[in-house]
């Protein structure tokens, strides 16, 4: 979309330049990838006596390969603001921007790169470190800064609840405006590969390594997004010559490219060379799990755990393999052994300068107006939150992060299979709870406290064989209990109301929260129903996002079913479990998928419009979702559907950016 005054949020500074100053003071406290880029503007009303004022906003995805590319963007920003009087806190102000400053954090060298453009006038730049000392500018610093910016842009996921709209005063642009920039990032990746651990890693990684860090994560996401598989593979092959561990990245790209056989061969070769490469082993195990060969998935999973016993992912995978194999006890024991990342948090954009509502200029973009999305009244939503059922708000499972959220997901999958009562029996059989132990071993003669299950253990010996249930897992059991109780009560009420033939009414927020409970508990259909109920009342971004997830999950399930039935017919493999639905004919399958693709397209359109309203033009997960739909349905069909379904809304123009992107990168399905 063309940048307009409606797509530029701003925050007023108390003193012009204060934001830059504050940022440089905080520079040495930045960790991992650091904060989003900052653009600070100085503007004044020409020929007036009122003084210059300062404003700022955050950015991701602004192209910063050189001083001049940054200056070009700053100038265009100044032009947009100066092109006509700006609607400014209730008044019309003919602002002229006289200076624009861009600051971007280089996470490799822990410095800020600062570009200052006087408008009109000179452009200058400098680099400062955490001690506010100037550093020699050079090509390497620029390369690192460019890569840092791309990483932040790609890894700022909007998929997760926790970080939506965290920083409203920011613009998020697509960092890959053309194929050139993507390839430049690939070059930077190869060049900076060894420094990858310096920029940190996802919280479930205990210590960043050469192949587990944010640089690698961003690279893989870029590959998935752009489909530049062959470029990626040749880079990785070169890197592998120096560092054999790179082989697991090659496997990942091959799998993205759908080159399964090559991937399997490489897995075999890599594991032969290093039988203790936990990454390779875990990928292999996950592959076999998807192929439903649990007998083969288990040895790899075990070997992975034995090779990296202090990493979370191998343990989580082992728990899943056991669970799929129906071995609940071992699944729980493996879960209990997962090393938790209690103090790390996932990367997300953070404010570096605290602000208040009165300082925020948050214009409404008028170029895209999708009725129910654009008209969502935040005052009404706030109102709703005040009268919402507090029991729903207080469900702590919603706040779980990183490894805890993942462990909870495994636990809910377990209870989904066993039921609560049976899960408690398993727990009592294999675990001794800390409380229980203390009372047993206490020298004072306390009353023997029994565990939550109400059963006392039988004698010293069986007692010793049990393992101590980790405190965090014990806590997850409690959260699970709350979730289950809420879900069960809700379902019982629904049935009651249906029997009474009365309408079951909830606030949209409440439907959304109920949907989340159901989603956590793997009751996807019930979750989807709740989200749809919420959306019948008003637009709700979280519900929409989760429906998108649901539709994608449904397609995956249909695809797996088709695969399995193909396997059954073709290979006559006995180890696969029985299908819970009858086989679908290819025609039925296509029809079902086409229906889901329509739904996906609709949620993508709505979420894109919502993002656009909040100055966000780039969300990798929406692009990926759309790419898959196009891959299945073809670009022309989809483009026609958008034109037909959303006339005169600006949605056409909005989605054209994505279609353009796919054509640039020759994404499968976009060839016309």
């Amino acid at each position, binding site marked *: 979309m063309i940048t307009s005054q409606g797509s530029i949020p701003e925050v007023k500074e108390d003193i012009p330049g204060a934001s830059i100053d504050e940022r440089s003071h905080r520079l040495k406290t930045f960790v991992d990838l650091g904060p989003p880029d900052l653009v600070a503007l100085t503007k004044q009303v020409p020929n007036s006596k009122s003084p210059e004022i300062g404003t700022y906003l955050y950015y991701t995805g602004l192209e910063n390969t050189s001083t001049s590319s940054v200056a070009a963007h700053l100038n265009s920003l100044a032009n947009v603001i100066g092109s006509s009087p700006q609607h400014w806190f209730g008044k019309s102000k003919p602002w002229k921007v006289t200076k624009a400053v861009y600051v971007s954090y280089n996470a490799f060298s822990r410095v800020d790169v600062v570009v200052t453009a006087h408008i009109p006038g000179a452009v200058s730049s400098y680099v400062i470190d955490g001690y506010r000392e100037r550093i020699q500018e050079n090509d390497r610093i620029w390369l690192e800064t460019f890569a840092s910016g791309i990483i932040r842009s790609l890894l700022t996921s909007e998929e997760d609840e926790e970080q939506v709209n965290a920083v409203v005063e920011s613009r998020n642009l697509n960092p890959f405006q053309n194929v050139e920039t993507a390839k430049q990032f690939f070059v930077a990746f190869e060049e900076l590969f060894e420094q990858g651990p310096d920029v940190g890693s996802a919280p479930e990684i205990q210590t960043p390594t050469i192949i587990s860090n944010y640089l690698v994560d961003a690279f893989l996401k870029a590959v998935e997004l752009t489909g530049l598989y062959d470029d990626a593979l040749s880079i990785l092959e070169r890197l592998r010559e120096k560092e054999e561990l790179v082989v697991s990245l090659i496997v990942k790209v091959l799998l993205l490219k759908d080159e399964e056989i090559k991937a399997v061969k490489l897995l075999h070769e890599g594991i032969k060379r290093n039988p203790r490469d936990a990454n390779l082993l875990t990928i292999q195990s996950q592959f076999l799990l998807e192929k439903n060969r649990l007998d083969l998935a288990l040895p790899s999973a075990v070997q992975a755990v034995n090779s990296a016993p202090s990493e979370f992912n191998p343990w989580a995978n082992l728990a899943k393999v056991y669970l799929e194999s129906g071995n609940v006890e071992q699944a729980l024991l493996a879960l209990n052994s997962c090393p938790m990342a209690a103090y790390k948090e996932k990367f997300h954009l953070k404010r570096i300068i605290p602000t208040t509502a009165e300082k925020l200029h948050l214009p409404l973009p008028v170029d895209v107006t999708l009725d129910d999305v654009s008209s969502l009244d935040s005052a009404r939503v706030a109102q709703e939150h005040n009268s919402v059922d507090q029991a729903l708000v207080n469900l702590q499972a919603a706040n779980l992060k990183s490894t805890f959220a993942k462990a909870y997901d495994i636990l809910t999958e377990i209870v989904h299979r066993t039921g609560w009562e049976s899960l408690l029996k398993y727990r009592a059989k294999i675990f001794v709870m800390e409380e229980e132990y203390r009372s047993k071993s206490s020298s004072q003669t306390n009353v023997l406290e029994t565990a939550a299950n109400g059963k006392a253990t039988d004698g010293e010996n069986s007692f*010793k064989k049990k393992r101590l249930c980790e405190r965090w897992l014990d806590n997850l059991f409690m959260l699970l209990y709350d979730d289950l109780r809420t879900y069960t009560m809700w379902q019982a009420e629904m049935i009651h109301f249906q029997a009474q033939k009365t309408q079951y009414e909830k606030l949209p927020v409440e439907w959304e929260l109920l949907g989340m409970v159901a989603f956590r508990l793997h009751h996807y259909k019930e979750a989807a129903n709740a989200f749809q109920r919420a959306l019948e009342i008003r637009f709700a971004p979280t519900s929409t996002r989760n429906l998108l997830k649901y539709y994608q999950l449904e397609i995956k399930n249909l695809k797996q079913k*088709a695969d399995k039935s193909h396997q059954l017919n073709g290979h006559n493999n006995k180890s696969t479990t029985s299908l819970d639905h009858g086989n679908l004919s*290819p025609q039925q399958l296509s029809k079902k998928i086409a229906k889901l693709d329509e739904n996906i397209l609709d949620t993508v359109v709505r979420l894109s419009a919502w993002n656009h309203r909040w100055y966000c033009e780039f969300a990798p997960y929406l692009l990926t979702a759309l790419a898959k739909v196009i891959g299945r349905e073809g670009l022309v069909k989809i483009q026609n559907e958008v034109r037909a379904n959303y006339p005169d809304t600006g949605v056409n123009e909005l989605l054209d950016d994505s279609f353009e992107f796919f054509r640039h990168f020759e994404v499968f399905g976009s060839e016309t």
Partner: protein
Amino acid sequence: MVEVSLTVGKLDASLALLLTKDHHLIEFPTVLLPNGVNAGSVVTIKCEQDLEQEAEEKKAFEDVQEQILELFGKNEPKAPILKI
């Protein structure tokens, strides 16, 4: 092989505190202590490498690897797959 004599200083749910003669304080998993051991007991710990078991496990693991390659890593003509 390593063989050490240790005094049990403290016995806890999962960890025991053992002490060597020269006051090296060692956290030791309680499950690995024999029954009947109490705080104050003296225990002997022997630890040795089991090369035979190691070779056996290696062999089994390699067999599975070959099987995986055989099943999923051969360029046999693919059955037609739906474009989904």
